[in-house]
């Protein structure tokens, strides 16, 4: 498309999305996220041990502008898996908690997922003891 030739930033973004099976556009980098939403998204991916590419959108405001034009998604971060937009921080967090993120990435949900501890269930359920039946 001539449109893409005229727009090298958008073309570079599209290429990065196509070349990397898992890619996160974020503020800052994974070691030093510059925004809480980006930090939350990185943490979810790292908790799953997912390898991912990361692009810092801060150095040039045009990156964010072109990315949002391409994805029709207004906010940062944005996670793409196999070329498809999966979502921003809210969706990533929600999918992490339900195990869908691991599924989407083809990974195992770690057993120690903090959100998985059921609430309202006593840590030590009363054992179904024999004395109950003795009445």
């Amino acid at each position: 498309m001539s449109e893409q030739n005229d727009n090298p930033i958008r073309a570079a973004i599209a290429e990065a999305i196509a070349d990397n099976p898992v890619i996160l556009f974020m503020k800052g980098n994974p070691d030093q996220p510059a925004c809480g939403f980006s930090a939350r998204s990185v943490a979810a991916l790292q908790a799953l041990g997912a390898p991912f590419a990361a692009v810092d959108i801060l150095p040039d405001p045009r990156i964010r502008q072109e990315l949002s034009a391409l994805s029709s998604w207004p906010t940062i971060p944005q996670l793409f898996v196999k070329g498809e937009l999966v979502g921003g921080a809210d969706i990533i967090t929600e999918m992490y908690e339900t195990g869908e993120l691991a599924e989407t990435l083809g990974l195992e949900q770690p057993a120690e997922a903090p959100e998985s501890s059921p609430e309202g269930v006593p840590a030590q359920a009363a054992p179904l003891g024999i004395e109950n039946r003795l009445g």
Partner: protein
Amino acid sequence: MPSPDEIRQRIESALPGARAEVEDWTGGGDHFRATVVAEQFEGLNRIQQHRLVYDVFGAEIGGPIHALSLKTQVP
């Protein structure tokens, strides 16, 4: 600067029948958190559901509304 109540009303009038709860997340008037329950979300994936809500605000997201954190549900 929009108030949480204004944001709620705009979501509810753009998606008739929807119920929205909006709070100012940081107290600074530009980071909001919304839970939206709408029949319009039926059959849509999360991305599409969130887009329906984001579309209400267009370019205001990232501008005067720095962040709008969303949770969407079908009633």
